[in-house]
């Protein structure tokens, strides 16, 4: 089924996507906003239009801000297709998507890709067991389903999101058995390098310190400097304990639910599939699409905004979305030719804290580049050791290791293993990740039946 050409298609209805759609719509563009969730909000504002007052209190004021944006999008008359799975995006800006089982391909003059972030992979022994989930999953269950852990939970990893979830759980009356902090530990000499950034981003820092105070006041056992982590299971069917070492001492906590988190990374499946240029960001330890200061990628008329352009948080996402929307309107001759400098200045302010956060919460090498026996590809159960063996056989990058080991060929198509594999190969070859490269990502980005594909 094909539709007439749209001015702009926005993929992703989180803060960046909503802001882009709004900015374009307000300048008279015909905008189509697509998302696979049943409502707007993305992950950070997940279920914002259906959560109750109690949950909003638990989740905090940052979450509630999303409601304003969601209402504005609806009021502006942005056409919104929820429950829509984009499975192919072409370089000529045609978007192929499934909606209600029917296949659509829609042409556009411009695209804004606002697919946001996802959890960084956290490959540890036992991470594929039932009972192991991400901290993000915990937060989604809270926002979307008003569900909380029923038994004392262990949170393991590092990063502000982990502490935010801990604080939210405490406000909800959930017992936290322990927080296992896997960051390298506070190295104040490195942190001082970012003192100016610290001052500029003091609002964020104060928020973070406040969360930590909340957690410590509740008396939650807090183990810092965790060096090794493994999750042990009952047979191969359920998590039953977490074992860890800290300062050389071994510990074991019996637990049926472990939530892992070591930061978020851009979800770049769409931009990779377009073969837009990406570069490796060594501070963020992830790939980032290379863009100009409006967010336009190396492909003309295709923009990224939000965490998918590099992790910056919800407010930065909103500003980047606005910039992209303005840019598209300008390009189609319907903007007011704003130069975007006001938005960029505010973005810079919000991003000032990032170097500090990136340093403070840099995930340990051992948790990004695991030992031989650890599964790196969950779908095909390929271990880090297998990747290293393929490198020894002559594979110089992730596509060759993929073809020799099936790593990356499973249903998730590299989303959970891609970063790990790039870094494992980088370590094994001594080459920087930028030279090692990333998977060739091909459509379909979401699976579809042959009948659906044939119906184009």
């Amino acid at each position, binding site marked *: 089924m094909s539709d007439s050409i749209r001015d702009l298609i926005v993929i992703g209805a989180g803060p960046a996507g909503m802001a882009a759609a709004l900015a374009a719509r307000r300048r008279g563009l015909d905008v189509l906003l697509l998302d696979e969730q049943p409502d707007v909000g993305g992950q950070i504002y997940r279920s914002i239009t259906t959560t109750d007052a109690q949950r909003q209190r638990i989740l905090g004021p940052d979450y509630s801000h999303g409601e304003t944006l969601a209402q504005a999008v609806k009021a502006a008359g942005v056409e919104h297709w929820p429950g829509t799975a984009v499975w192919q995006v072409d370089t000529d800006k045609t978007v192929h998507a499934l909606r209600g089982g029917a296949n659509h391909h829609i042409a556009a003059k411009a695209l804004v890709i606002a697919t946001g972030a996802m959890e960084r992979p956290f490959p540890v022994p036992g991470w594929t067991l039932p009972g192991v989930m991400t901290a993000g999953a915990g937060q989604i269950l809270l926002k979307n389903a008003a569900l909380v852990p029923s038994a004392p939970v262990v949170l393991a990893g590092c990063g502000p999101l982990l502490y935010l979830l801990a604080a939210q759980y405490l406000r909800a009356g959930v017992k936290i058995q322990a927080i296992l902090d896997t960051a390298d530990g506070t190295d104040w000499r490195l942190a001082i390098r970012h003192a100016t950034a610290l001052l500029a981003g003091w609002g964020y820092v104060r928020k973070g310190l406040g969360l930590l105070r909340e957690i410590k006041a509740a008396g939650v056992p807090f183990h810092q400097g965790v060096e090794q982590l493994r999750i042990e299971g009952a047979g191969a069917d359920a998590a039953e304990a977490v074992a860890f070492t800290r300062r050389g001492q071994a510990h074991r906590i019996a637990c049926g639910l472990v939530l892992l988190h070591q930061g978020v990374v851009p979800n770049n499946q769409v931009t990779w599939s377009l073969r837009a240029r990406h570069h490796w960001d060594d501070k963020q330890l992830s790939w980032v699409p290379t863009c100009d200061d409006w967010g336009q990628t190396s492909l003309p008329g295709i923009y990224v905004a939000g965490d998918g352009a590099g992790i910056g948080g919800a407010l930065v996402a909103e500003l980047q979305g606005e910039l992209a929307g303005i840019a598209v309107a300008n390009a189609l001759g319907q903007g007011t030719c704003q130069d975007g400098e006001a938005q960029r200045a505010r973005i810079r302010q919000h991003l000032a804290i990032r170097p500090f956060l990136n340093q403070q919460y840099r995930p340990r090498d051992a948790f990004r580049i695991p030992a031989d026996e650890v599964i790196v590809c969950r779908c095909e159960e390929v271990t880090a050791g297998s990747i290293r063996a393929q490198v020894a056989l*002559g594979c110089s990058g992730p596509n060759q290791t993929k073809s020799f080991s099936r790593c990356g060929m499973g249903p998730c198509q590299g989303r959970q293993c891609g970063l790990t594999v790039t870094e494992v190969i980088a370590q094994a070859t001594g080459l920087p990740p930028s030279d090692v490269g990333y998977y060739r990502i091909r459509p379909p980005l979401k699976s*579809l039946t042959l*009948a659906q594909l*044939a119906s184009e």
Partner: protein
Amino acid sequence: MHTMNTHTSDVVVVGGGLVGSALAYGLLRQGLFVAVVDGGDDALRASRGNFGLVWVQGKGYGLADYARWSFGSARLWPGLRDALHEETGIDVELAQDGGLHICLTEGEMQQRLERLQWLRREVNDPGYQHTALDAAESRQRLPGLGSEVVGTTCSPMDGHCNPLKLLRALHTANQRRGVALFNRMQVDDIAHQGGVFTVRAGTARWQAPRVVVAAGLATQSLAAMLGMFVPVRPNKGQVLITERMAPFLPYPTNYIRQTDEGTVQIGDSMEEAGYDDMVRSPVNAKIAARAVRCFPALANARVVRTWAALRIMSPDGFPMYQESATLPGAFAVTCHSGVTLAAQHAFTIAPWIAGGARPAAIAAFAATRFTPDTEVKPYGI
């Protein structure tokens, strides 16, 4: 993998894909010290896009030598499978129980039968066989075959394997036999002086009295440096792969085969698309539609992955095996059936490259059959 300023060996193979790796394997078996110079992870690699058929029927219409060549390879294939399994422990999942070519119109069936009859006459070998099956007979052989299928041609000579395992097995066997493999290299030129060839990539150099260019689409420019005209151009093929399915397809067909992993591989297409190897519509949709016509139950099978790769296409579609007339010891090898021909490359071509007599079977595949004025037929759907 190491880089040295000048590496010396008995032979340098430029290209580490299926063709280069099979040739290297054969050369190592001849007792030569072999260097393989290969590109990077993001190089255009036809070897990653293979369908995996070990196929004979229908090949060589217009040049019966190609039919004989493919048939010969199919007969040598079990030996390759066994040797690789013995040396590496890797089973490349060769199945040679026969294959079927599906025809969806009477016209197709008629043309197919004419071609196969021509081939049988020309090849004139009792082992070279095919049978025509009508719709009902075809459905007996392949339950679930759609009602739109008017007939199939079936041949016991045909089969399939796992092409990625094949490439890995060749790499592993070569490593165990002491190949010197250099990857992430882009060869800039090949020079010659006093019986020695020097292959250069940046500041790295390889020297040997023999050199084989098996570098896919890069073969033409490199072969030209060695006094050979080896015209190749890209031809794009797209393939779809489904989720794992319960076994339902006992024989590979020209469009569809079920892999040893249970996934169903569906192809293929031929497009003149230059160097574009991105998956694009509407070709992927056409491939899907045709698959559903062949096996209606596939309508609900989920496509989880697709890919596109560029075949190495000569002007007439047949391989090129050439030794330079002006620079003996320099060879060029190209084809677009690196899987089927892997056995010939390892067991027949390699001994020739090592210094043996040129096999009579490949006389028809000299690159000298082409000149810069040769007309190029476009291959497309």
